[in-house]
């Protein structure tokens, strides 16, 4: 990573010049992508999403860069923070994510027409009983943790997990039937 060049471009960007700032982001991107690929070798499909999130973070926190500080250290600290944050989020929710998304062909097809699927999903979700609908809504759609969802729905954690599991199964069945 060419520290001096990138730092110069960033400093011009910070003074409001879009051109150098654009070059800064474009030249930084391959470094960030390589960094994420090395560390997410088991999850290559997540790299591009996280890369965008990382660029956004660098952009929205650009005022915290101090020109006396090495740019590499600043970028690396942000990248590391976002990576750890991503891992933590994933470890909390993804136990319940993988099986259906990857194994169920009905859901895999639905993802191609995202907005339509969202509409169908909302309609189907309404047909589920509360003990299945609320956990799915909180954990799967709003991204809450199982603990939060349990508190909000007034259910035990295991009831939330069971509700998600059964509810997703029921949803998958309904989707198959409706096709």
């Amino acid at each position, binding site marked *: 990573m060419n520290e001096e060049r990138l730092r110069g471009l960033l400093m011009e960007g910070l003074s*409001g010049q879009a051109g150098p700032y654009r070059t800064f982001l474009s030249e930084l991107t391959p470094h960030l992508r390589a960094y994420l690929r090395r560390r997410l070798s088991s999850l290559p499909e997540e790299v591009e999403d996280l890369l965008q999130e990382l*660029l*956004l973070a660098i952009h929205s*926190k650009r005022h*915290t860069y101090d020109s006396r500080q090495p740019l590499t*250290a600043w970028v690396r600290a*942000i990248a590391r923070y976002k990576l750890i944050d991503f891992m933590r989020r994933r470890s909390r929710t993804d136990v319940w994510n993988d099986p259906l998304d990857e194994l169920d062909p009905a859901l895999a097809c639905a993802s191609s027409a995202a907005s339509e699927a969202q509409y169908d999903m909302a309609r189907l979700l309404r047909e589920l009983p509360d003990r299945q609908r609320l956990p799915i809504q909180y954990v799967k759609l709003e991204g809450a943790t199982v603990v939060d969802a349990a508190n909000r729905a007034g259910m035990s954690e295991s009831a939330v997990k069971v509700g998600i599991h059964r509810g997703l199964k029921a949803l998958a069945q309904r989707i198959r039937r409706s096709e």
Partner: protein
Amino acid sequence: MNIEELIDTLARDVAARPRASAWRTLPWAVAGGALIALLLAVVALHVHPALGQEALQPMFWVREGYCALLGVLGCVLLGSLGRPGARPGAALAGIPAAVLLMWALALTSLVKSPAAARGALILGSTAAACPLLITLLASPIFVALTWALRGRAPTQLRLTGTALGFAAGALGALVYTVHCPELAAPFLAVWYLLGMLIPAAVGGWAGPRLLRW
């Protein structure tokens, strides 16, 4: 949105809005939080009636200096913790050094006084209330500092939260001195420190939730 489009959008955004002056938020947060704490101390507690006479004693200024120094060191530490990749530096070592210095002063004063008087030097007459009242006065400063730090980019949330709570505690203690009648070093070494450590513990616990970005 692909990467190229994202970069274009961000580049346009940088031209539209000049660099945010977020570095000035920390002093403003300190001033605002401390002012509310001071109002709280004057209204809810009361100003110590003998404050004027106390101010003539050297220990009064040791107490003020101790709290102010810890507050400033805490804020300097916060400044670097809010910047990704920055080293905490001397502030991190300065805090334990100042606390040790106060303990040394306390120990000296205990050794020099007769055995029967030592308990009173440590406990004073307000020991039970002191740490809780400091925590109370620290809370508006805590909120203000949290607001300031959320505009930055702390990457070690637990450590940042702890430093934030400690800084709020030290500044809260500084405000508390307008009400507090105690000047003995052993009292300050124990109860003032406890009053700073309670918000620090709260900050360490809540940091990952409050400061996540």
